[in-house]
């Protein structure tokens, strides 16, 4: 099976602190990790390869330093990694990102399965992988919590989707694009051998020219939206600690909640 894993590098929200707010964390040079949802993406792709053979290519769109995320992917066990990076692509919206990824996927070649995460924790649009499926015209199976049956010979898959109000089992033709949620697996840690191999890996970087993309058709200038970003309003600390034993505290708390009209 030829499997493509869509990976993003995101700010490391575990580093947020009083001295590291969201703007500082997001600024160039801030601490970065593999998007937490994409750890499940990578594990899903690697497990599918372990079961069915073939090759996993991790594909990442981002600045040059996003190569680090691909090194993590290689250390976990993907076979190949491609970074798509070009200054012209910066600050694009989800749809320009999807168009770039589609161009890169076409350059990678034939695929049976594309795996992405539910969302990336920075933009949190939950849109890019969906739009890749739409532009490629391949079946989309999102919010996958369990991949029950992946059958490369029969060209089908069966999966359980975790929706807000139901678990839905669906079948789909292959090739398909799936997005995964955390329940699907437990991502492995990179092995020592994997880390050494990844450190030596030469990760190709594809720009607009390599993908035959017009620089004017990508990035902020080609996006359907623009945005300004600020820190959220600071919330006043105003906790009321309720003292007393269980019965007294319960009475006071229920009084307060009734005054607040939330119960």
């Amino acid at each position: 099976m030829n499997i493509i894993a869509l990976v993003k590098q995101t700010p490391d929200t575990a580093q947020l602190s009083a001295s590291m707010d969201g703007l500082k964390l997001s600024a160039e040079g801030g601490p970065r990790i593999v998007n937490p949802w994409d750890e499940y993406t990578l594990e899903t792709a690697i497990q599918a390869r372990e079961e069915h053979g073939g090759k996993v290519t991790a594909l990442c769109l981002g600045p040059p330093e996003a190569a680090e995320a691909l090194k993590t992917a290689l250390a976990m066990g993907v076979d190949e990694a491609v970074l798509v990076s070009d200054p012209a692509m910066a600050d694009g919206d989800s749809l320009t990102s999807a168009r770039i990824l589609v161009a890169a996927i076409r350059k990678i070649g034939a695929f049976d399965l594309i795996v992405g995460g539910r969302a990336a924790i920075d933009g949190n649009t939950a849109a890019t992988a969906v739009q890749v499926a739409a532009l490629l015209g391949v079946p989309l199976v999102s919010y996958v919590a369990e991949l029950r049956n992946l059958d490369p010979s029969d060209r089908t898959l069966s999966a359980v989707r975790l929706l807000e109000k139901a678990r839905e089992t669906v079948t789909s033709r292959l090739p398909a694009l799936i997005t995964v949620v955390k329940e699907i697996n437990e991502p492995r840690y990179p092995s020592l051998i994997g880390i050494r191999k990844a450190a030596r890996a030469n990760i190709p970087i594809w720009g607009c020219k390599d993908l035959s993309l017009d620089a004017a058709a990508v990035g902020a200038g080609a996006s359907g939206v623009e945005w300004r970003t600020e820190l959220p309003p600071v919330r006043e600390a105003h906790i009321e600690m309720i003292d007393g034993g269980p019965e007294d505290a319960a009475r006071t708390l229920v009084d307060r909640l009734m005054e607040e009209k939330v119960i």
Partner: protein
Amino acid sequence: MASNLIVWIELVDGQADPIAWQAMAAAGKVAGDLGGSLTAVVFGDGVGETTRQAIEAGADRVYTADDPSLGRYRVEPYAKLLARILEHEPPSVVLMGASTAGLELSAYVAALAGAGLAPDCTDLHVEDGRLAAVRPALVGNLVSTVTFRGTGHRCVTVRRNIFQPADPDPSRTGEIIEVPAVLSGDEIPTRVTSVETADGTVSLTEASIIVSGGRGVGGPEGFQPVRELADALGGALGASRAAVDAGWIPYAHQVGQTGKTVQPDLYIACGISGAIQHLAGMKNARVIVAINKDADVPLYKYAHYGIAGDLFSYLPAIAEEVRKRLGR
């Protein structure tokens, strides 16, 4: 230039999901300033009642597609049909709820229509005649104000439980436009083979009250008093990542960065210290109560009420008090 609003009315098991009326309310909030009409879109198998409700909720026109192949939401037939409708509409704002289906459908339609997209918004307003959408980013540590470029359609989804629907107006009338499905059953690449609904439990993202347990509950059986309080309050059961990762409770209950984002009226956190990843999912709850044996946890910075004590003593007492006072 005036801009019309087109709202997708999401059906779940044949009934409109409450988030659809919240999306209508969001559309109503900006319709006046944008100067356009309000159109609803209802797809399904048996949509008459919902169509009527959409008009009562403020729609001037309703596009309906009534077909067995549309009986249960699937992205391809819905997105292609909605994109087909949009081909015949002047540049419009396409609004829906940011449910699992709405997030997916709006992104897919935006790709087909070449539209700008602002997902999971918490506020909408009009700046200099243009729509501006406010949305949290970086798990609630940034706020983005999104505006649209170009002259095409604009797709927006709104987060659950933010916009308050007005009372329906049964005297309203509207135009109904029937459209056929664009994909036949055979052309739809996915098939739903079974659906398992969580009967009798309150959906986490819809709940107005959530009681959550974290590391401090100590084990699977430690969720018993948490569940008991949730039941007494008629609320949903949540959990922190620590509790889910420990295998004490299924992932579907996880609130936070890699779980669900919730916005209830009341969030009671039991034995949860308040890691940034958890706060991301719940800090916008209207009233937050933290119950923790430690007198100093990060969550107290966000909570309105705190009880520093053993949750196994306090939770049953609170549940008992709730039952007594609410007569349950």
